[in-house]
């Protein structure tokens, strides 16, 4: 028998998160397919294989809580409650997209749901998350901010500056590192001289913890502890989710920097498969029920594609709109 599932998540909610896992997977697989066919332009960064860290971390949030995301952000966006049809429309550059077709994959934000935005700049979210947490503290709004980032971003100065500032001001922000082993082609082994990103937390006097990023239950448990601490005024934490991206960095990546054996090894640790097995084993749901949930997710993504392709292109008259907010 596996370890008991976290009891702060209800049976029904587990099914919701299982569906979100598949939404992330299907969404990014669909995006991959459309990029290959040239139906979507620009570039994109897929989170296939990393579903558990996004869904697991956001699962312990309250609606008022906020996140900042990365350029590999589709999963975070879905996990924070975004609708896949408006996301897909954004990738197709349509007016119905979250950013009216002006942001694209790397800039989707959903402020109404507390997603302060993906970011095309590696490490761009650290200080923004810290600032949002400062607002929460100053206005006593009681929300916590989750700041997602990759292992590569922890070599940026902004990581160190923001962690220091968030620590000295005891801000309600939880830094979630999705260590997928590579910053573009740079292996963590070559780019850092510490094994774990989490050890860097020690330099800033905040808790740092390594968790299994492919095990959604492990992510939920560890992130909840950090979120609770932050909400109680205990300041920031750093949680490192060890995971792996199945796809390349972006669409142009031939993945020369890693072996097929390594990829296979991680694919065998599929976070969605692991979640399903645990839910069945613990009697949360039957295999049939979960297959039905999977099917719903698939249909939702198919529907998103229809929504996106049927949505209008933005008119040229919108080109100059929204550079400035009206005074």
């Amino acid at each position, binding site marked *: 028998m596996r370890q008991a599932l976290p009891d702060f998540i209800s049976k029904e909610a587990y099914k919701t998160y299982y569906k979100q896992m598949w939404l992330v997977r299907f969404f990014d697989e669909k995006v991959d397919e459309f990029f290959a066919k040239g139906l979507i332009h620009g570039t994109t960064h897929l989170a296939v294989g990393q579903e558990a860290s996004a869904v697991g971390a956001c699962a312990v949030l309250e609606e008022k809580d906020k996140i900042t995301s990365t350029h590999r952000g589709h999963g975070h966006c879905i996990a924070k409650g975004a609708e896949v049809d408006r996301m897909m429309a954004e990738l197709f550059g349509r007016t119905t997209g979250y950013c009216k077709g002006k942001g694209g994959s790397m800039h989707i934000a959903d402020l109404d749901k507390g997603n302060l935005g993906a970011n095309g700049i590696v490490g761009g979210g650290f200080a923004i998350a810290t*600032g949002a947490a400062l607002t929460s503290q100053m206005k006593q709004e009681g929300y916590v901010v989750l700041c997602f980032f990759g292992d590569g971003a922890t070599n940026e100065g*902004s990581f160190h500056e923001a962690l220091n500032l968030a620590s000295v001001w005891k801000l309600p922000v939880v830094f979630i590192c999705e260590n997928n082993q590579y910053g573009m082609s740079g292996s963590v082994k070559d780019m850092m001289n510490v094994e774990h990103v989490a050890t860097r937390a020690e330099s800033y006097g905040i808790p740092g913890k390594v968790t299994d990023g492919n095990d959604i239950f492990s992510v939920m448990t560890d992130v909840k502890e950090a979120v609770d601490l932050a909400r109680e005024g205990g300041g920031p934490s750093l949680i490192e989710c060890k995971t792996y991206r199945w796809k390349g960095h972006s669409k142009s990546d031939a993945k020369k920097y890693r072996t097929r054996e390594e990829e296979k090894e991680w694919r065998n640790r599929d976070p969605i498969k692991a979640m399903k097995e645990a839910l069945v084993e613990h009697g949360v749901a039957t295999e049939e029920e979960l297959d039905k949930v999977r099917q719903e997710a698939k249909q939702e993504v198919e529907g998103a594609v229809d929504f996106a392709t049927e949505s209008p292109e933005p008119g040229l008259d919108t080109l100059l709109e*929204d550079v400035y907010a009206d005074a």
Partner: protein
Amino acid sequence: MREITYLEAVREAISQEMRANEDVFMLGEDIGVYGGAFGVSRGMIEEFGPERIRNTPISEAAISGTAVGAALTGMRPILELQFSDFITIAMDNLVNQAAKIRYMYGGKGSVPLVVRTPSGSGTGAAAQHSQSLEAWMAHVPGLKVVQPSSAADAKGLLKAAIDDPNPVIFYEHKLLYKTSEHVPEEPYSIPLGKADVKREGKDVTIVATAIMVHRALEAAEKLAADGIEVEVIDPRTLVPLDTETIIDSVKKTGRVVIAHEAVKRGGFGGEIAATIAESDAFDFLDAPIRRLGAEAVPIPYNPTLEKATVPSVESIVEAVKHTLPASFKKGRELHA
């Protein structure tokens, strides 16, 4: 009538806005009990407390981004960057984040952030503490850029900047901090994008910014002795730029000299010159447009060299004379 300094005017504007709006707060290095590197926030921590006069670690990347995040979520931060040169370390957050957020989010969200920062040379602080980098900021869509040249303008423009829902870079000139003039006590706003005619004249227009406004006015005095009537226009904000006032003046005078302290090459003067050349004022030009800006060198330490790097009263006078017809010069020489 009460006279206060430019520095006091800046402090007064911030204090009044902080009293009026709980969401307004200041953050920056050494702004607490120290009172800020130039003394702008002196005494403010006593009134507003360390929560709202937030002393930060020395970390421009973090504090600029934190200000962006706070602004995006409902606060109105005023960030003091100790010297405008340090904007280079805050660049990602200002250029890639603050300036872009509203547009790339499809018109959702706004970043009501004011970055106040002392700019310019003349203090002997040399190459890394004396630059005028306003053209960089003016180049970026999504940012507004303000350069007040007087105490009264500083107060009114700062209120407008704090009230504005967009990121505003507010350049304060170090040498102007101690200059004083009559400044109304009650809060007032000077709209961003409205130039000021600092002196009226019919012969030559000088468009000048920040400290160059003062040098242009001095030059105008000297030229007046020779019977040359100079009009001095201070745009006050580079973004938005009041092109109308500039163009109207050039149409009246037919001659224009542009003076700024920043390096001439790639400087904002080129933008003003091109704006005039592209407008219907072109047909009114009686002489080529002349630009004055700093030499393309890092600001040197030696005081004589430092002074020689940037436009002076004398160089402005010379530039104005160059725009005048030979007959005018002759008449003046005869007069002399």
